[in-house]
């Protein structure tokens, strides 16, 4: 049991470190480090431009999408090299936030189901960040029940005509392309009537509207489709086999590790370390200490769980769905942490303006953003189901809609 790199790993790390030291946009490092929950923003610069520039620079030097084949704009690296890169890239990795969906979900799906020409055409600019992709699965009627989607695709000659609405599409407003899951046959059970496509987001009939979140920010969009035309050549997988195609996408989402979930603990510990309460330093208050200790072991537990997953990777093993505990634990924890931090501030905890609030309103922002964390990318309840079914092997929920034609489901 050790934390040492293998010689090859060490060599790779050194190379990455050196290149990053020489090329990373240092001027934003501090701002990126302190960025809290939700979409990262920069005070005096357009995050999109900064991110695209950094991604392009990485791509030109062969540091983009490391685990992708060279032909498609990657480096053909091993999973562990990818993790080492993430460790070395550190705060600058937050600039990749805009590409995560494209690199983590759309790319792998294209790689698995697009034609060779299409791959050579679309993947390199996706890897280099010149083109941004989004994922169009969720719908208002869908929610956790992704396969319940209603967006219709009807064949007209060599084209498909799309009508419907998607929601929770992150980055749709600045995306160039998207992968789209549609219903092509409502007369069969819901998982059997879906088909996947990719499309140009600039196509006529595509309308993007930002969603204002409970937190007041807008990290997501609604996307409306009115008679949008997609050539059959942009179909991914067989007609009505879209559900299986989408599983590839979702699996890849869950595979991404080391990314590190935010628990809010480091922020809370720092805050308590300097905070003075009525009768002494907060850090010496036994109630504070007990709360901190309980959060501390969750935070460290998650950290070491991901180190174990990385070790599995480095041995060429495939880390299992065990990783889904990260989001489950961190989601409700970050919310509790925020509430407790406000509690420690007393009545003034209600103030959220950067100038009036403690530590620039960090915890107030955390409080307002945290409910989303328990929902996005799978609710706590879905995560528990995943753990219970895939890890512990317990039976799935009873599916009343299993063999019912979609258009017969209430």
């Amino acid at each position, binding site marked *: 049991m050790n934390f040492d790199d293998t010689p090859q790993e060490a060599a790779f790390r050194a190379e990455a470190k050196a290149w990053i030291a020489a090329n990373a946009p240092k001027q934003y490092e501090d701002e990126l480090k302190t960025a809290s929950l939700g979409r990262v923003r920069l005070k005096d610069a357009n995050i999109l431009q900064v991110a695209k520039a950094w991604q392009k620079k990485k791509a030109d030097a062969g540091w983009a999408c490391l685990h992708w084949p060279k032909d498609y704009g990657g480096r053909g690296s091993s999973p562990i090299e990818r993790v080492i890169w993430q460790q070395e890239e550190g705060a600058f990795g937050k600039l990749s936030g805009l590409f995560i969906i494209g690199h983590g979900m759309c790319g792998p799906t294209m790689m698995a189901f697009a034609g060779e020409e299409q791959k050579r055409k679309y993947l390199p600019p996706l890897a280099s960040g010149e083109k941004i992709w989004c994922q169009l699965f969720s719908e208002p009627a869908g929610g956790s029940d992704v396969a319940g989607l209603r967006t219709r695709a009807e064949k007209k000659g060599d084209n498909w005509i799309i009508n419907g609405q998607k929601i929770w599409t992150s980055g749709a407003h600045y995306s160039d392309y998207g992968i789209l899951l549609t219903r092509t046959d409502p007369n069969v059970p819901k998982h059997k009537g879906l088909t996947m496509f990719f499309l140009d987001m600039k196509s006529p009939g595509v309308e993007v509207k930002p969603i204002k979140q*409970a937190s007041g920010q807008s990290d997501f969009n609604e996307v409306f489709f009115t008679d949008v035309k997609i050539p059959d050549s942009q179909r991914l997988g067989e007609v009505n086999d879209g559900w299986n195609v989408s599983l590839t996408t979702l699996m890849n989402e869950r595979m991404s590790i080391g990314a590190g979930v935010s628990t809010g603990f480091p922020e809370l510990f720092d805050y308590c370390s300097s905070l003075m309460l009525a009768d002494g330093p907060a850090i010496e208050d036994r109630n504070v200490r007990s709360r901190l200790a309980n959060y501390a072991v969750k935070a460290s537990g998650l950290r070491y769980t991901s180190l174990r997953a990385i070790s599995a990777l480095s041995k060429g093993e495939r880390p299992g769905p065990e990783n889904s505990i990260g989001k489950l634990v961190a989601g409700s924890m970050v919310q509790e942490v925020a509430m407790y931090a406000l509690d420690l501030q007393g*009545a003034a905890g*209600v103030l959220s303006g950067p100038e*009036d609030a403690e530590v620039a309103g960090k915890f107030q922002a955390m409080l307002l953003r945290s409910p989303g964390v328990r929902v996005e990318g799978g609710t706590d309840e879905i995560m528990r189901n995943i753990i219970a079914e895939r890890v512990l092997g317990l039976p799935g*929920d009873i*599916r009343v809609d299993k063999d019912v034609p979609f258009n017969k489901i*209430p």
Partner: protein
Amino acid sequence: MNFDFSDEQKQLRDEARKFLTEKCSPKAVRAVLDGNADYDRDLWKGLADMGFLGVAIPEEFGGAGAGHLELCVLAEEMGRALAPVPFSSTVYLAAEALMIAGSDAQKQKWLPKIAAGEAIGTLALFEGPGNPSPQNIKLTASNNTLNGVKKPVADGAIADFAIVAARNGSSGRESDIALYLVDFKAGGVEATALTNVDPTRQQAEITFKNCKAEPLGAASEGWSMLMRVLDRAAVLVAFEQVGGADRALEMGRDYALDRIAFGRPIGSFQAVKHMLADMYVSATLARSNCYYGAWALSTDAGELGEAAAAARVSATQAFQHCAKNNIQVHGGMGFTWEFDCHMYYRRANALALGLGSLTYWEDQLIDRMRKRNAA
């Protein structure tokens, strides 16, 4: 034994609910949330016309003279409806302080205006982070002139007057703290609204510069009067919290019945059912604790201190719990600005802090239980 509200009080509740459903729809609340108004003036006027603002104010001072059980009933409804008006600062804090400590002249001047909706009052206590305690009060008073800064002050920038906790001694004892009444027209008062977690209830910073003030009650008893005001307000705010918790629970329940996923209402999944059952449990425990608080408040019983702290702790937990999990039951939609869930979440977290933190009240509860056991 009748550990419940009377039929008349229940009628008052129905009346208030009907009124608020009409005059204080989510749409009305959003007008303030979105910053189109600092509070809902029409609603405020309406509450005055209904006689709600002065429900607990004696008739001789222009009130209805009904009593505090009636006020508890109204507080619950205000909480349910997220009423975007300075009700708690004016009615639970300013009016209560006047009734406890005010001179006849002071009562004559302000209480009728409060009842008529013509004066907004508040309590200026906090000076930045920290909970109620004498040493946290730095604002000075010397020959009835105040200098210092209070923040946050609920509804401070829309208030006409404030009860101010000030330091007029340096013995380090509670007796250093005295209460003053400041008419904002008097000058020397500068109030600015501050961004806060719940925009439907204003928070402000108030700077007092050589501000003339009149003493409220005996100087040396400022602190004990303040504690009494806070205890009474704690019960009333707890009813607002229970009202909010109940509403959040209902919203979650209704959505769980409507929303279909996997071919069935999500309310048929145990994960959702049991989440809602647990919300019901904490809301019920809080309500029961509040009823005891209401009894103690209305009878000014010796148990008030303990009852108020228990109601406060229980109701704070319940509203935060229900508001938080109401969003969770709603899933992604619950996290949109468009859905009302977040308005309850914001209010729950704001009310949890307004009179001092949960931890502070836990501490108060234990102190008071110890006193009782010692007695």
